[in-house]
């Protein structure tokens, strides 16, 4: 089982869009995938038409000995299951803090699912907190969406130094370009600069209305419009991640 966190300090950069679509692409490729929605707003759960409620909330997510597998819900897509979000996750930080070894708690809990899944994707709210530390600790790789702009590049540097500041095993950093609008000159220019950095995944995710419309279709892009460029881009992104991870 490999765990991939999707995280950055900024919000609204396409984390959840990537989480849902990459998870769907992975499942489609025959990988038993679990999407863990750690954002109290539950956008990933919403996109997959799963109620954003977890029996027992943050506590049952973290309580050692509780059966995490029983909280996992199948989605309408083959090989894709979700651990839905819960509103109580807005206090996930406090909930972690109360526990022993909060840094590794999430990793330990997810490890109990290793027989059932080949891949776990963690979608989380943007913040620097105990939750992000726990996500880093649990992740083999960290997928970082970057919108092509100077500010985003600075954000990526901050993410890098935050990851570097973690004393434990550090996840493989996989930045990728998100919401790229080819019509914008700034995007075109920055894209080139980013891709000069070899740690960036080669696939870029275009800015596309089909991704925006996921809020209406409540399905991954490839489930409704598989031939759309955005759908193909997410699939390509998954195959790159798969290669880098050696799944």
């Amino acid at each position, binding site marked *: 089982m490999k765990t991939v966190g999707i995280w950055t300090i900024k919000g609204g950069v396409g984390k959840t869009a990537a989480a849902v679509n990459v998870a769907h692409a992975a499942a*489609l*490729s*025959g*990988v*038993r995938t679990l999407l863990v929605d750690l954002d109290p707003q539950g956008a990933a*759960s*919403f996109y997959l*038409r*799963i*109620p*954003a409620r977890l029996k027992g909330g943050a506590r049952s997510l973290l309580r050692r000995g509780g059966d995490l597998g029983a909280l996992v819900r*199948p989605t*309408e897509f*083959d*090989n894709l*299951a979700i651990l839905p979000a819960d509103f109580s996750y807005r206090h996930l930080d406090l909930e972690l803090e109360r526990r022993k070894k909060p840094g590794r708690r999430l990793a330990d809990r997810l490890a109990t699912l290793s027989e059932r899944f*080949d891949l776990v994707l963690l979608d989380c709210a943007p913040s620097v907190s105990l939750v992000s530390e726990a996500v880093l600790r649990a992740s083999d790789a960290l997928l970082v969406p970057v919108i092509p702009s100077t500010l985003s590049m600075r954000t990526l540097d901050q993410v890098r130094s935050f990851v570097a500041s973690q004393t434990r095993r550090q996840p493989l950093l996989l930045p990728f370009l998100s919401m790229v609008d080819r019509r914008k000159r700034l995007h075109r220019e920055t894209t080139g600069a980013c891709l000069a950095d070899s740690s960036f995944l080669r696939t870029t995710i275009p800015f596309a209305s089909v991704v925006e419309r996921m809020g209406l279709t*409540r399905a991954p892009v490839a489930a409704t419009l598989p031939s759309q460029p955005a759908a193909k881009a997410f699939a390509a992104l998954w195959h790159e991640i798969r290669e880098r991870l050696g799944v």
Partner: protein
Amino acid sequence: MEALDRAAGAGRSVRSGPPQRLAVTALDSFDWRVWRNGGRLFVEESRGRATLRWFPRNAGAPYAVSVTATPARGADLPSGFLRERLAGALEVRALLPLGRGRLIRTPVELLDADGACVERVFFELWEPLDERARAVAATASWRLDHPGGPLTGIVKRVAAPKSETVEPLALLTAARGRTPGDYSSKPRIRLHPGEPAATALRRILGHMVEVVERNVPGVIADLDPEFLHDLRVAVRRTRSLLGQVRGVFPERRLAPLVRELRWLGSITGPCRDLDIFLLDLGSYRSILPEETAAGLEEIVQLAVHDRRLAQRRLARSLATRRFAAAMERWRSLAAAEDDTGTSGPRALRPIRRVGGERILRAHRRLLRHGLGLADDPPAQALHRLRIDAKKLRYLLELFADLYPRKPLNRLIGELKTLQDLLGEHNDVAVQKQRLAGLAGRLEEADAAAVTFVAIGRIEEVLERRGEELRHGFAKRFERFASGESRRAYARLFGGAG
């Protein structure tokens, strides 16, 4: 559907999705290795697209992966979960279409007030097709993957209060006369200690002839090497048993059958030997350096060619009148009414005593032949010992039910350790011989130099392994022949005497 919707309660609704029409094929090995591995495997086809779907036997979400061709064996399974789970268990066995049918699958969802799906079940209509693709009566069923959910409860209460759960694998395979688990290469025949020897042996004979009959079509169609393997084991065991347990059947009925069993052994031998040779050649690929490994190709080609001929010859033999008559003879001895008057002197003795005597005799014989040998014994002596050990093993396993399980298993384990050495030593000798034979023919055919380099390397490896085994012999035999082990034989099998 309306009834389900009404039962859903306030704020919730039940909605069914678009039905999917699928052509389905149930895949498993002849001996149900997928099913025994805790699942069921189907190829689902719709509009030219094929999905391989695994349903765990206990409830739980299925696993699915799209395929371009129906996998024919474990190695063809797409990499990932399925191959990891099944390839090891399937070994060389072919994945066969054991059932076919049509399926209409309709998802049914319980939605909450926000339109999110609280739970999903499937309404499925299965229509099995028999061998001639004629439809057999369709069966409707609910697939409830997750027991305990609210929708599962509603369905059970409202839509299907007394429906049995349909096992789709059983449904599809029944249309072709199969039942999951109906064949195992390791059969168990329940014997009773007090049973007269004649009845017990007849039941064993009846079982063995059935094994042969069931494997014949797979041998003729050459589906995978295990059909022939199982067929041969049944023949050899029967022959060994009849050769060792004398005085139960009248000699005039026994002799012709034993003769035909010997014939069956001889017609099945060449193809089986080549099967083993080809399987082993695969393993040499890894021990040869890369340049030399290329030299294997010509050897493989020649062996594959020989095997094809051997298989055809075998298939022809199995279609002869002689084969049919041999089977008839076998069956009739197994089925014979109680012909006490004409049967041998031991016919009415309890099987436990007869079995014990035979086991002790086979054991003594193996000891006698083995104890005289020093370390590094001649190959011929090891060969004889291998046969002795096999005979003893057959008896121990056939009569296993009649003796206390635990000590018996210990003895079988000890014997097996000895047999492993003897068996491998024999394989080495057979391979050397075959390689030498092939080398001669390849020379005549002007094969590439690298082929002879490969043969030379393999011969070296075999030579060394043979020596190693011969040197390890004394130690293994010592353990087998220990005082403690001998006492255990006397205790277990002598008591009834």
